[in-house]
């Protein structure tokens, strides 16, 4: 399957190929992938793709997926309209 056609992050349309390239560029954490590719930075905030990103990181570094730290969760954990919180 061509990696450049397989979307991993649906929100930001980041492909497997781009994530692998980010790993080669030095990313070793979810946050490193985020800043290089924008994966996990869209509306769903990684609820869909973070586990996939971790799998790629683990695979490329020869570790278990569970050894990759989950990105820090920060509020708001759901999108909120500014008008709702003022």
């Amino acid at each position: 399957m061509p990696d450049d056609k397989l979307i991993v992050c649906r929100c930001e349309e980041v492909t497997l190929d781009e994530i692998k390239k980010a790993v080669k560029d030095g990313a070793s954490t979810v946050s490193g992938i985020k800043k290089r590719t924008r994966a996990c930075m869209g509306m769903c905030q990684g609820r869909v793709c973070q586990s996939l990103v971790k799998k790629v990181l683990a695979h490329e570094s020869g570790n278990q997926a569970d050894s990759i730290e989950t990105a820090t969760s920060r509020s708001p954990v759901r999108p909120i309209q500014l008008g709702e919180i003022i």
Partner: protein
Amino acid sequence: MKTDVAIVGAGPAGLSAALYLARRGLGVVVLDEYFRAGGRLAGQLYENPKKPPGQRLWDGKAIAEKLSGDVKKAGATILTGVSVWEIAPGSGVFISGGPCQKIAAKAVLIATGAAERAMPVEGWTIPGVMSAGAAQVFANVHGVLPGRKVVMAGIDPLSITVAGELKKAGVEVVGIFLPPPGILAGSSGLPQWVIGELSRSADMAPGTFLKMAGKLFGGSYREVGARLCSLAPANIWGIPLHLRKAVIRVEGEEQVDSVLTARISHDGKIEQEDCRIEADAVCLSGGLYPLTDLIAAAGCPLVSMPGLGGMVPLHGPLLQTQSKGVFLAGSVTGIEGAPVAIAQGHLAGVSIAAFLGRLGKGNRHELDRAVEMVGQAREESPLKFYPGADGARKELAALWDRWKINSAGGNYA
């Protein structure tokens, strides 16, 4: 809005905790993002072979209706269509879409359940491709089918169950296939691993479809081996279950029109492109993981427990967390079935009542009893989602004890 306990999630765990707490006379507000209480209970209907005859039917929708009715009768408030965006440990939760901005509460119960793991395939953003869980919700809860001709990718208890339910509802289920092999599918793209997992869970499977799968794979190793060698699909109630074929691409412009499959070797490599199948919907299944973002944002550490479905918040035997006054119940503590979630919800309720000093001295036994009931629910559970759950629970308990000792006892006796 002010109350004693704010409960996030109106699924089996949250409702069961609410029922206990409201009956104890505590103020309870249950919050849920969905517009109806019940959570994933709503889509469940199966028989539990481990229960005595007469008690085997598990009608999730009826249970959800009764539970939420009882909760309201007991005096609790259920707010639906409300999203919780932050826990303020010790002071409540912040909400969006509700009648106010904050539910001030002395204790908070997080019962946010699980989310589905993505199982991507090229073309999975095309409309008509949805998660297996979504197909289940639309068919079983809303009475709307995902399509007329459906392909399922990803072989696990959920996907087999959903495929069966769709077939029963009149959908032509073209087949259940492996996910595309590669990094993202990992072991779930390997025929051998899939068979192993299926035989492990199928011997105590709920529902006819999984029992069929149990008959197919729960047998001898020789039979499993034979299945591995065979390119012909197994057959579950007329649905072809392909252990040597994977969906490798979904095609279509504005919506799904076909699916490309490939033959897969024993060790999970694409041998050759197989054929193009016409379909108007594709369901993807990758299993479940605990939805922990809310509790993690409150600063609770997550620990890796593959046996519980992934990262779970560190918590104690009484479902307490490191944040004082914040408790957990249900699949957020690890993926398990609804009966376990109900028992955990009850335990969380008793535990919160004790935390708030409302249990009463003579009622300490209620805590022990509630812990026992969770154990019993686990024993009777018809399905283990992940192997190694028991070991993971023990490991978690040990981690909790270590934290408690290191932090000089924490806040709990």
